[in-house]
């Protein structure tokens, strides 16, 4: 199933569930779908390096000026001497939610007045660094911020990777939950068609 934002109204918040095998493809699908719907997109990544993601987006011919990054892993993995990247804010540690919050706020301000969507990839990789109760609080903070600024938001989660209680709590912060991969471990091809 290819992710689509066509039938959704603006300023909606989603949780998108995908299999562990398909989570990387789902990132690309979501970004593609957002751009095709005239969104600017802020990709908050705690799973893949922003540089690698950018390469993937370039392969899909996605316009780089519409994609902004909050990268929590590049400086963490490669050290602090990472060269600056266009439209990208690096934070030094994926467990530092304060810095992540500031970077998200700054990115939102930078895109103020534009039709913007935030993609968080992924809550499961955040769980490596942050306990579930802190993540819940952080997602609550982010969703509030998005709603205040009338922005859309998509939170990627590996299906069956979150305890039902935590998932149901997260569900209360968003408008919709989309289970993109009801069949586990089924790798979906990336398609340009939305």
């Amino acid at each position: 199933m290819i992710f689509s934002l066509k039938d959704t109204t603006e300023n909606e918040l989603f949780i998108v569930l995908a299999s562990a095998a398909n989570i990387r493809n789902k990132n690309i699908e979501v970004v593609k779908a957002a751009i095709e719907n005239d969104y600017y997109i802020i990709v908050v990544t705690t799973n893949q390096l922003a540089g690698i993601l950018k390469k993937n987006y370039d392969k899909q011919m996605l316009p780089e000026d519409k994609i902004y990054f909050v990268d929590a892993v590049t400086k963490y993995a490669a050290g602090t001497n990472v060269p600056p990247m266009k439209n990208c804010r690096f934070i030094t540690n994926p467990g530092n939610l304060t810095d992540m919050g500031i970077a998200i706020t700054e990115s939102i301000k930078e895109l103020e007045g534009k039709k913007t969507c935030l993609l968080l990839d992924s809550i499961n990789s955040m769980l490596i660094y942050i306990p579930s109760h802190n993540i819940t609080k952080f997602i609550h903070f982010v969703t509030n911020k998005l709603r205040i600024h009338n922005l859309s938001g998509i939170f990627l989660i590996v299906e069956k990777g979150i305890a039902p209680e935590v998932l149901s709590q997260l569900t209360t912060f968003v408008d919709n939950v989309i289970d993109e991969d009801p069949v586990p471990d089924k790798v979906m091809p990336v398609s340009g068609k939305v």
Partner: protein
Amino acid sequence: MNGFSTPFRDERMKILTLIILAVICIILEILMHIYLGVSIGYTHFFYVLLVLAAIWYQKKAVILAVFLAITHIAVGYYIVGESIWAPALRGAMFVIVTLLVAILSEELEGSRKQLVLEKERLQESEGKLKVIFDSIQTGIVIVEPETHTIVDVNPAAIQLIGVPKDHIIGTGCHHFICPADTGKCPITDLGYEIDNAERFLLNGKGEQVPIIKTVTSISINGRKHLLESFMDISARKRAEARLKETNDRYIGYIKEAAMRLKTPVQVVGQNIALLGDGITLGDFSQEEIVSQLNLQVLNMEQIQQNIRDLNETIIDGFGEISPASKKFLME
């Protein structure tokens, strides 16, 4: 042979009475029969002696009756010169009446002894029941079902309710042992059965004490009563709550472990697989490969740290882990 109350409880008094009556009978026999020639009437007095003797000494009194009969017949026949039949008939009546009264007396005495034995057994049984009632560790309350008034309560129930006995007896059962409103008694008004059911008791402080309770109908002195027996299960409830809390914590740790270990390991595995594919296809520069590998190594190290953190939390939550096990889990 204590059929009569005073003064005949004393054995000597009985014998004295019988001797006096026997002497009177002999005097009457001499005076009335020999000197006055009257052979009837006075003999009725003999029955006083014979009846008393039969009551007190049962069939032994027949010997006295035979003696009086022979005396009466002998005096009439040999001294007064009467026909033998009339004194013989009277003499026979002495013996028959004495024998009948003796038999009745024996039966009466048997019944009395039986009653005494029954009474003793009953008293012994009541005594045993009282000891059980007073020493059993189960609270027992007896309720009059029409008014729902408590009519008796045992020490275990008093201790559990925490109010003196005289404050409990006479009050409505809904004050202490049944929180149901008046007119909504689960047994008499709503027809429920309560058999080993978990309920609450209201103690003197107004606190709810969890109990396990059984209510049965019993008859006391021919009147229906409700016997409510109950045991304090506070300790069990506390243990259950502790167990549930422990279980909830365990499940919480397991869930957190699954979220912070199992799925992240899957994600890392997937990332490494994709990195391998990318390397094969020549998608990444040397620097990108190193950074990505470094990230996955850091992820794995953090997952290892998460295991230690979760172990520490479990150890802090449960104080029953040996130092050796603690060391093993923490390192």
